[in-house]
């Protein structure tokens, strides 16, 4: 069973570098545990420790190969070079959901807000950078074609680490495109009869004259 293997793993020591500092830690630790264990300074980007908050972004160097990932989901390896990345800067695309008055012009609005979305050059940088294995490129193609529900569904596991935004040479900001797609789908199309019925019942009971 995996638990016993993991216990045995934790007896072995591996050496790696984190933010340029050489550290020796037990195998089986995540990169976050290793950074804490070694007292690496300035590691402030740690959050949920279970891979859903997207904060602990790291760049991973294995020889000449460089990838990115989440430190709480990546285990230590001998010789790996780890650099904790700063948080993403503020998004360049701006909208407020209440700006949209109706759904008929949403396609035009989408391309105004995210003009780069139709310029994907299929470099796969976003797909390779995604720690959740999301088919980011396919999602962007769906969004550019106006298929917001399907595009949003592609991004269901997105943890907003914004690593794909960094990877995109066209500055598409795929994570924010994905979220836009999810949000407009709910905003315009989610009209559940059971909820609407209950809201109306509550409104009417408040209008009754004998209501306190």
């Amino acid at each position, binding site marked *: *069973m*995996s*638990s*016993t*293997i*993991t*216990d045995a793993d*934790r007896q072995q020591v591996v050496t790696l570098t984190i933010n340029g500092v050489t550290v020796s830690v037990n195998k*089986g*630790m*995540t990169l976050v545990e290793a950074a*804490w264990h070694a*007292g*690496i*300074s*300035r*590691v*402030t*980007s*740690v*959050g*949920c*420790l*279970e*891979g*859903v*908050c997207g*904060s602990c972004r790291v760049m991973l160097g294995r020889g000449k190969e460089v990838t990115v990932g989440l430190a709480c*989901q990546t*285990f230590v390896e001998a010789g790996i070079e780890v650099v904790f990345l700063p*948080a993403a800067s*503020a*998004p360049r695309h*701006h*909208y*407020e*959901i209440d700006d949209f008055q109706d759904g008929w012009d949403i396609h035009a609005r989408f391309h105004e807000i995210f003009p780069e979305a139709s310029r994907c050059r299929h470099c796969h940088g976003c797909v390779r950078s995604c720690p*959740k294995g999301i088919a980011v490129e396919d999602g962007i193609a769906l969004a550019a074609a106006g298929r917001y529900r399907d595009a949003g569904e592609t991004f*269901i*596991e*997105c*943890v*907003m680490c914004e690593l794909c935004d960094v990877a995109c040479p066209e500055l598409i900001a795929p994570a924010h495109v994905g*979220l836009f797609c*999810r*949000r*407009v*789908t*709910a*905003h315009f199309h*989610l*009209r*559940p*009869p*059971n*909820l609407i*019925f*209950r*809201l109306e019942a*509550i409104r009417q009971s408040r209008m009754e004259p004998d209501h306190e």
Partner: protein
Amino acid sequence: MNKGVPLAEALALYHRAADRAPAPVLADIDTLLNAYHPDHARSSAIKLTVGVNAGDECQRDLADLLQAETFIDEANLAGAPVTDVDVLVVGGGGAGCAAALTASEQGARVLLATKLRLGDSNTVMAEGGIQAAIDPEDSVQCHIQDTLRGGHYGGDPALVAAMAGDGPDVLRWLINLGMQFETTPGGDLQTRRAGGMSVARLVYCRDYTGLEMMRVLREAVIQHRSIEVWEQSPVVELLSNEHGQKCVGAVVTSLIDGQVRIVRTRSVILATGGLGRLHLNGFPTSNHLGATGDGLVLAYRIGAKLRDLDSFQYHPTGLVNTPHLSGKLVTEAVRAAGAVLLNGNARRFIDELQPRDVVCAAIVRECAEGRGVDINGQRVGVWLDTPHLEQSQPGLLEKQFPNLMTRTRVSGIDPRAEPLLVYPTLHYQNGGAVIDANGATTVPGLFAAGELAGGIHGRNRIMGNALLDIISFGRRAGIAATATRDRGPKKVTLEHVNRLRRALTLAGMPMSRRSPQVLPPYAAKGLWNH
């Protein structure tokens, strides 16, 4: 503690295909809780000596932080840059974002300061769902009754009624912001029943409900024109007027460069969440790294009354057999979907949908009496029978619990093939700051929302009420905090700090400890040097 059934022996006794007998009937809930719930462990609670709650029971580790010295004195404030806003929101989780969005809807200039990254919170990790009485068989009244009963009638009925009554409108508000939920083929919101609910009331978005909520709220806050966000900016002290009687601002510091800043406000909304990362009574925790109870310390020092400081929720099913995920949750929804708990002898021992404190105490009992599963004498737990669930409803785990599957896959475990070892984990602070239905604390100018606030969940919270609580009271606090249109503070002081310092001296208490904690010690090394 008695040794349990060794892992290999327990695995040999476990058979996925065997029929599961009904759970034994529980004779007496109170006896079980008193004997085995961690809140009742000997020496868990002490009486507070100073402050507005002097004489009240309080968990020991928390009491040390409440009755401690501050980091800030007048010298730190001289020359510190000053920012003026209408409303300061402290905390970047669901409650903080809801409060900030609502306050800005009211026309206030809002500053949101958060210790880590916006959205880093327990909200993002909530999996199971949010409660709202929308089913035809359900009613707001029924929701109120379930919440009060689940909390062993320790909750404030006015607060519970406010929250339950907000439920349907909270869903409407979230959908308007762009949050998705599961729907039936007919378009209704899908509901399901979980522990402590008399009818199906949990609405959800797969097992990503909190993530879906948080990324929508986070994006809405970032994109909002009149909300400013300071990340990596913990609040380490509040500011009071010259009498120490009203909250008029806060001292914000920076994890990046240590800079101290003064924020002057008309209102402060504390939404700093819980305190799992204090690891009370030595338990692992399901909580986010920032959950160190900072808001309780800030509120107590300025004189806000707190309540139920000896009551915490230990979630029954924290993972055991994955060291790096130790204490992380398997959502209660897995039990709601039909997974049962089995002890080391492969027998059921409790109705799995009893309130969380009861199930927790039952697991502690099984392990204490030698019926747990023992791993090398180091860790102990009971089985969560996911393979049997998979067998009875093939594909369910992959379809409804992708988060659980992804998380365990990283660790090389397949819950469809092997049962998960679980043990209770520190999950939620039941008590907190005393508030009214507007989220106002007992100190003028100071509001509290979310896990930090107390009185809603009594002595035990039922599933799905946390996500409702944070939006309901986040919005209420956001409205109330903008309603007071006085002319703002003339003078900001540390008078309340001096008051507590005098009380500590008079009581002969040690002044060596400083609080708030800000980060747990294991994460603070080399990072946050006071």
